[in-house]
């Protein structure tokens, strides 16, 4: 993992003290709310429906066990004993007091964490493939480049007041687990005869005007990443709209001028940038790369015989292995996803007790490192096969072993109107009801891969546009209604879902999801045809027919 140097440390500590002074001046009346609000937002402190909310950055979704224990401690001491992991690989505390926030930030700084740039019209926390460093077929660990972007973008004076917020994601395999195409910039690391480089995608996003990012450069030599990003950001900063909040994202600009023209403008800007003054020297890239060296794996057989015996002998264990583990690049190791989606629970919530226990398990089984997934789960990515059974048994009493990763009850849901001041409808209770309706494990397995994503407003924090089944909460004359979209996807076959028809009342939305699933099961070519593939083959008509005919 990356460790702060003296610059990082000083920067974050100074910011804590600045904010402490700002809070004091707010409480003493020197600052009005109008003056204070932009200052608190720059430090990740929002005001939501019931309380302040502090959004803590988890750079590219990587946490050490020490950091996770600190999050558990903060939740216990300053909040209500839990935190909420988000679709941006961040953690939100839902109940901090304003007076306590400087102390919380000081505790975070002690473990090299902060809440800087988790709000505002700046470059936000860079996200990555949550299996980085462990995934089979990886070019190299994408977090090396995330960390380079993090350092470059932190307090970047030119890009602190962009037309709108800006999100960058990085992957390094052909599988896209970071939803690149719905980011302002998506970077896919690749390698060819020229060496390592990036496919650069620009102008994706969800929200009111969903758009898939367009590739503006199929190959950018990795060494020029920062100067090229600077050219994109500068082009956007100059030409992006500031007159209309809803038209200010880069996706609107790319669409307005066209991807080819946008690419030309970026290239033109890039040629004018003194690249050698922006791009990192090779020695600095090497220094950062060294922090992400692979952990000291043991040389073990590809298939551990004891593990195989246990898997064959225990149906529940086999089920969990099938859904909650993934192939590791190192023989004899596995990637384990801990489900934060217990049936009937709140997607993404973890209690202090769970966080402490996960930190201990990470120390025992996974080199003390934890990942946050954008699908609101946690992962231990370097687990020996022979330890899987013991880990599974430890996870069960913690309620972290629901065998549902990638299945219909692994639902993404934004906080919705239960917490969020922007929401129009609740998301969490809908996720809970769907999850309880689909909790039969045999049936869940039979349905197969199915991604249900729920947002409580058009801002789409719950990624509903890229849900295989997307659900958007709307307010119709004071009542919660839910619009259903089908066929969305956030992976390497990214697509924006299509609205299937008129919205459903809160009472009918679970029925609607069940009906879509029934229709799929009846019409799929066989159990191997996934929901998304079946939808792409069949189109929306059979689903519309089932949902709306005769009703």
């Amino acid at each position, binding site marked *: 993992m990356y460790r702060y140097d003296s610059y990082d440390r000083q920067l974050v500590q100074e910011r804590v003290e600045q904010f402490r002074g700002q809070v004091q001046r707010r409480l003493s009346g020197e600052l009005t709310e109008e003056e204070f609000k932009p200052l608190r937002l720059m430090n990740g402190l929002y005001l939501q429906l019931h309380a302040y909310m502090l959004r803590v950055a988890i750079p590219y979704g990587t946490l050490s066990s020490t950091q996770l224990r600190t999050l558990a401690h903060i939740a216990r001491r300053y909040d209500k004993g839990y935190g909420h992991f988000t679709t941006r690989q961040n953690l939100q505390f839902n109940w901090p007091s*304003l007076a306590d926030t400087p102390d919380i930030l000081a505790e975070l700084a002690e473990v090299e964490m902060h809440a800087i740039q988790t709000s505002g019209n700046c470059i936000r926390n860079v996200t990555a493939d949550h299996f980085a460093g462990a995934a089979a077929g990886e070019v190299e660990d994408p977090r090396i480049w995330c960390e380079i972007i993090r350092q470059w973008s932190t307090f970047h004076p030119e890009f602190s007041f962009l037309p709108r917020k800006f999100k960058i994601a990085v992957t390094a395999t052909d599988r896209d687990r970071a939803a690149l195409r719905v980011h302002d910039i998506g970077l896919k690391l690749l390698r060819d005869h020229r060496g390592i480089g990036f496919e650069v995608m620009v102008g994706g996003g969800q929200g009111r005007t969903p758009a898939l990012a367009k590739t503006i450069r199929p190959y950018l030599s990795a060494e020029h990443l920062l100067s090229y990003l600077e050219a994109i950001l500068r082009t956007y900063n100059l030409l992006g709209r500031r007159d209309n909040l809803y038209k200010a994202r880069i996706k609107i600009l790319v669409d307005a001028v066209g991807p080819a023209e946008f690419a030309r403008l970026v290239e033109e800007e890039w040629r004018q940038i003194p690249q050698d003054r922006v791009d990192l020297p090779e020695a600095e890239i090497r220094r950062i790369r060294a922090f992400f060296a692979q952990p000291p794996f043991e040389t073990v057989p590809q298939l551990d015989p004891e593990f195989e015996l246990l898997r064959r002998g225990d149906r529940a264990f086999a089920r969990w292995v099938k859904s909650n583990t993934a192939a590791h690049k190192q023989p004899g190791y596995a990637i384990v996803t801990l489900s934060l989606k217990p049936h009937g629970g709140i997607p993404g919530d973890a*209690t202090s*007790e769970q966080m402490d*226990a996960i930190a201990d398990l990470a120390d025992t089984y996974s080199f003390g490192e934890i990942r946050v997934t954008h699908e609101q789960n946690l992962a231990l990515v370097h687990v020996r096969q022979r330890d899987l059974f013991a880990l599974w048994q430890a996870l069960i009493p913690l309620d972290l072993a629901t065998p549902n990763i990638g299945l219909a009850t692994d639902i993404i849901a934004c906080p919705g109107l239960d917490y969020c001041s922007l929401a129009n409808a609740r998301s969490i*209770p809908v996720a809970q009801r769907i999850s309880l309706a689909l909790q039969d494990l045999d049936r869940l397995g039979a349905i197969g891969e199915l991604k249900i994503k729920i947002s409580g407003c058009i801002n789409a924090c719950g990624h509903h546009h890229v849900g295989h089944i997307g659900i958007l909460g709307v307010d119709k004359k*004071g009542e919660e209604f839910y619009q259903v979209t089908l066929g969305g996807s956030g992976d390497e076959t990214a697509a924006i879902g299509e609205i299937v028809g008129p919205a459903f009342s809160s009472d009918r939305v679970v029925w609607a999801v069940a009906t879509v699933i029934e229709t799929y099961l009846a019409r799929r070519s066989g159990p191997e045809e996934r929901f998304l593939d079946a939808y792409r083959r069949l189109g929306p008509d059979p689903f519309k027919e089932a949902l709306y005919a005769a009703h």
Partner: protein
Amino acid sequence: MALQAITANRLIDGAVVYLSAEGAWVPSIASAALAESEDDAAGLTAAGERAIAERAVIAPYLIEIERGPDGIRPKRHREQLRALGPSVSFGRPAAV
């Protein structure tokens, strides 16, 4: 005119509060002072302005209130959630 109360978030911790008949900002909507006329409502708004100046609350605003079998409650769904807190049981400890 519909019944109205004034609500805000408390500066120090962001908690949802209502102005009571005694002039205090309290978490329980049951104690909220109710305005039945434009004049009453203007009085609540003025009290809200004073509370901003005194650094007690942030951004006070009037909400519509209705009387139900269990006492008063806000008319709008969003305000009902603000009055009662999240409708989900959060922070559920793991079954250890």
